[in-house]
């Protein structure tokens, strides 16, 4: 529609200045109004066009209202349409005219031509003038009963528009139930589809206040409605098919034969020319089979080909959207796609956002059989003109190397990169070689020979320089001139701008000193002096610490700075599996494109109605109560958001902790096998406590957090926690019951509850355990706040006994 009022736009001299032209038009319109001469419609049309084009450039032509309405008593639909556009535009800003408009449109709602009836009704509902809604009810009611499907279709959407202007008027006129009747009985599928989309919107909005509406909303995904829609699916337009398919994803079949029936019925939708239909069908297939692992795998096989075809056809935007979804699936089930790796090869003139996705997918699908070819292909990209992609592909090579397939060949490739003499290639490759050495120390000989040849002058990027320095320190015994390189680096201390590099330099000089003391002594002295004088706090502190520990005892210093290291087995993953699952649940939405769950980029008030059910779906066991209102959903999401960031930090912390384990042990501070068990608490718990999931949810959102703390798990406990069930049984023996649990190693999430003995006071606990760091995040909520501390100690002691025989 034409944007109204754009009067700000500077008016060029050629454009009409207003006044005189408008009065001129008025005169001409008046002349034509009564005329019935042949060809009069044509001249009217020209005039109308002029009026509307004036309107769009911001000239006020509202004074022509009367004439326009008079002129539009015609059967010419184009004239009518232009007139509707005109009146629609002015009714909003000019209440005097609105009433006139309504009269005019109401008259047209009884026109003989169904097209005019429909158009008038559409315009009438688009007026959005709140105090005139009572005039809408009549025409809408008769529109819904119209004999022509076009009018009914418009009327159905009209009901929705009315609802948004005035919800109470719409509900009072009992339109929702009329729509429901139409949806189940109308012969025209477009009417049915419009009913469905309107009802979904209306009932979702009503559900928060009305019990009945939320029941009606549930009824939409009941078996009879779903089957009715599915049986007619081929008659629907492609867009309506998307709508129906989206609804089907929310349907939970009662038995597995139903699942197969639905999939058989929808199988040909995968071959539809419209990508939106294909993707919606894919979502149905994936959601239906979530609980059936082997069928789920077959689904992956089945949907693979259609998705790959979608990628190669259509506009870049379409292929990017499909590719993002494919990316998600590849990340979830890389082995299914491992034979199709060639589809993820980058084309020269693809945009870099597509290339980046493809590189990630190539990394994911690499396995024994295709690693060689994939790495060869990735090496081609390293010579790519597009520098960010070249870097990305080198990183991808490194990631594949860390996946342990055919490391031998990859190391050779990486070393070739180092010899390519391109600064960014060298930089990326250095970082990778460092990571590789941390995981596969056995490769040190080959790598060091090459790394030793790299002049540190050619490496400028802080990350790469830090990596090089780390290797110099770590392998100084194998590199002839390591002390001298380090020495020259120390001499240029002041020119080194990155604190990270300076920190690494300090540590490297220390390590070198322990291995080759006579050669390094002077460099160490210089480095410590420069470090202590450094303005950067961390560098200063580390230099001071090294200095003092050296003074205290050199052998202790060596044990701290240069302990024997274990190879790193797993590098921390950047995105938690919970977020990935969340995105998967929101398949076929923007979440996949942004690679973020929807709560991270939508406002609270716009969040979809069924999200909460998904949330609980992830945590098995507990039966999710569905009659949840939107406010609690929001809160739950917020809590989750906090949780996931905390979790990220935790994995990071876990990572560094792993590296420092060796140090702790050497210092004789080995973790106690069982933390000190606190004295037996006073609190007694009810051994047969019972709580249903919905009450739990309700309480969880009502109660404030009484206590939040981080507990350490004993190594035995970590070892015992291979599956959530193990902990459940243990806690049960301490009268703490589990209501929901989920997750996979290393992250587990539990919701526990307990009841005070002979009292109905409840304690609710959320416990997130990361086994790689051996930490548990515990949040306690209690009916009786005063005893929460006592409960927490109880909980802690119960948890600490886990894993002990």
């Amino acid at each position, binding site marked *: 529609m*034409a944007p109204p009022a754009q009067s700000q736009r500077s008016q060029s001299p050629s454009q009409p200045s207003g006044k005189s032209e408008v009065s001129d038009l008025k005169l001409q319109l008046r002349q034509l109004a009564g005329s019935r001469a042949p060809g009069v419609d044509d001249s009217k049309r020209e005039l109308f066009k002029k009026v509307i084009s004036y309107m769009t450039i911001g000239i006020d032509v509202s004074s022509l209202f009367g004439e326009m309405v008079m002129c539009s008593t015609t059967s010419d639909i184009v004239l009518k349409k232009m007139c509707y556009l005109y009146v629609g535009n002015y009714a909003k800003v000019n209440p005097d005219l609105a009433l006139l408009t309504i009269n005019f449109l109401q008259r047209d709602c009884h026109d003989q031509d169904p097209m005019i009836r429909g158009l008038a009704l559409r315009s009438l509902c688009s007026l959005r003038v709140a105090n005139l809604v009572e005039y809408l009810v009549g025409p809408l009611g008769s529109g819904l009963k119209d004999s022509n499907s076009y009018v009914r279709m418009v009327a159905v959407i009209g009901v929705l528009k009315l609802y948004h202007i005035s919800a109470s008027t719409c509900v009072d006129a009992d339109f929702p139930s009329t729509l429901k009747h139409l949806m189940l009985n109308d012969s025209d599928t477009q009417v049915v589809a419009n009913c469905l989309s309107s009802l979904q919107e209306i009932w979702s909005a009503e559900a928060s206040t009305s019990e009945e509406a939320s029941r009606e909303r549930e009824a939409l995904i009941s078996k009879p409605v779903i089957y009715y829609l599915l049986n007619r699916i081929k008659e629907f337009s492609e867009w309506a098919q998307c709508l129906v398919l989206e609804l089907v994803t929310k349907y939970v079949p009662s038995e597995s034969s139903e699942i197969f029936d639905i999939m058989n019925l929808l199988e040909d939708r995968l071959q539809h020319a419209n990508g939106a239909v294909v993707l919606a069908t894919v979502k149905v297939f994936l959601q239906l089979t979530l609980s059936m692992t082997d069928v789920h795998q077959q689904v992956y096989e089945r949907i693979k080909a259609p998705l790959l075809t979608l990628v190669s056809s259509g506009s870049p935007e379409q292929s990017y959207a499909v590719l993002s979804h494919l990316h998600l699936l590849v990340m979830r089930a890389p082995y299914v796609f491992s034979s199709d790796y060639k589809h993820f090869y980058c084309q020269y003139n693809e945009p870099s956002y597509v290339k980046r996705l493809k590189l990630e997918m190539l990394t994911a699908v690499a396995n024994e059989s295709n690693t060689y070819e994939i790495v060869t292909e990735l090496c081609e990209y390293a010579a790519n003109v597009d520098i960010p992609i070249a870097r990305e592909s080198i990183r991808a090579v490194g990631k594949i190397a860390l996946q342990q397939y055919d490391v031998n060949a990859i190391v050779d490739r990486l070393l070739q990169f180092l010899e390519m003499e391109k600064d960014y290639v060298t930089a990326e490759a250095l970082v990778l070689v460092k990571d590789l050495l941390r995981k596969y120390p056995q490769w040190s000989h080959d790598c060091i020979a090459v790394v030793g040849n790299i002049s540190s002058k050619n490496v400028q990027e802080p990350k790469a320089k830090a990596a090089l320095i780390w290797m110099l320190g770590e392998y100084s015994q194998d590199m002839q001139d390591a002390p001298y390189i380090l020495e020259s680096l120390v001499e240029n201390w002041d020119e080194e701008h990155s604190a990270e590099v300076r920190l690494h330099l300090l540590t490297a000089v220390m390590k070198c000193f322990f291995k080759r003391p006579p050669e390094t002594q002077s460099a160490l002295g210089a480095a410590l002096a420069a470090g202590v004088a450094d303005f950067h706090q961390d560098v200063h502190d580390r230099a001071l610490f090294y200095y003092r520990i050296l003074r205290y005892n050199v052998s202790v210093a060596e044990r701290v700075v240069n302990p024997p290291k274990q190879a790193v087995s797993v590098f921390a993953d950047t995105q938690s599996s919970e977020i990935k699952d969340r995105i998967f649940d929101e398949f076929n939405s923007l979440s996949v494109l942004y690679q973020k769950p929807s709560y991270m980029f939508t406002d609270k008030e716009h969040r979809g109605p069924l999200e909460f059910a998904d949330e609980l779906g992830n945590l098995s066991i507990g039966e999710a109560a569905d009659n949840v209102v939107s406010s609690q959903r929001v809160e739950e999401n917020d809590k989750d958001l906090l949780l996931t960031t905390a979790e990220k930090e935790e994995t990071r912390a876990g990572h560094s902790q792993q590296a420092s384990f060796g140090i702790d042990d050497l210092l004789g501070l080995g973790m106690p096998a069982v933390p000190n068990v606190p004295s037996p608490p006073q609190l007694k718990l009810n051994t047969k406590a019972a709580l249903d999931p919905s009450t739990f949810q309700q309480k969880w959102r009502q109660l404030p957090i009484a206590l939040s703390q981080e507990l350490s798990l004993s190594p035995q406990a970590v070892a015992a926690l291979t599956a959530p069930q193990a902990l459940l049984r243990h806690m049960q023996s301490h009268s703490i019951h589990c209501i929901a649990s989920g997750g996979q190693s290393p992250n587990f999430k539990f919701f526990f509850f307990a009841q005070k003995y002979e009292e109905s006071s409840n304690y609710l606990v959320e416990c997130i355990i990361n086994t790689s760091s051996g930490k548990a995040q515990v949040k306690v909520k209690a009916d009786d706040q005063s005893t929460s501390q006592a409960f927490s100690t109880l909980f802690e002691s119960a948890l600490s006994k886990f894993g002990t025989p």
Partner: protein
Amino acid sequence: MPPLMGIEFLCRVSDVLSDYLGGLNEDVIKDNFVIVYELLDEMIDNGFPLTTEPNILREMIAPPNIVSKVLSVVTGNSSNVSDTLPGATGSCIPWRAADPKYANNEVYVDLVEEMDAVINRDGALVKCEVYGEVRVNSHLSGLPDLTLSFANPSILDDVRFHPCVRFRPWESHQILSFVPPDGEFKLMSYRVKKLKSTPIYVKPQLSSDAGKCRVNVLVGIRNDHGKTIDSITLQFQLPPCILSADLTSNTGTVNILGNKTCSWSIGRIPKDKTPSLSGTLVLESELERLHVFPTFRVGFKIMGVALSGLQIDKLDLKTAPSRLYKGFRALTRAGEFEVRS
């Protein structure tokens, strides 16, 4: 809102508008704003896509073409909107306009294929697949029921159909059975992967020494399909580290554009010689050798053959009218055809 629904709809809007207006740009939209407004009004309401089938839209809103103008002058009926509501909205075949009549019944089937290939510097074929479309242009009276079958449907890897194609016959016998929309439309698209050879070869050789790089590129026909390969072009981006380039060819013309893109248009390959491009690139002063190698993008066109090998077996019409013309064509183009050096 599913993202693809939005994107697909926008693509459809742009298709319909350019179909109606014969192009799509700001000026055309300004000139025809009434039609654009009418179309959008029918295509989407309250944010939900409604009618997007061009055939039905055309029944509701006449395109602003010369025919309708002539017609309106002759008949004196000046409305470009039909008086009746489209009958097809309620019918089971939403893509077909109600009962068109033609004096000559014609149907044409085109196979249009695009070959995507990546070839490494050693001439090894990294990846080669064909994306193809079956385009049909039908002018048939009444409700024609067509069946189209292929001689070798088994080579198709994946297929997508226009909604008019019935799924069951394809599933059981690989036969396309459909009631076509009127006019031109895309009946089916398909993908054929793992092809073994490309119609032409490109052999780039780059050797650099002492700040200069010698380039030599040969282009030739690999295996003869018996059809001429037309409009062969070769394009590549010179790396940014190149100061100047001096390139000549023995056939066709070489142009170096402002953004350091070199394009060599060959056209047809002459019988007597192999087209070659040669010359030197001068590198930036500090550089001894070239480290980034350009990728050559190749374009070509072959009339009369579908390189995937797909062949149409026959096209039948149930209740064939007295005079029916059937036509078949095939065409292969280069899609993303790249040769690395």
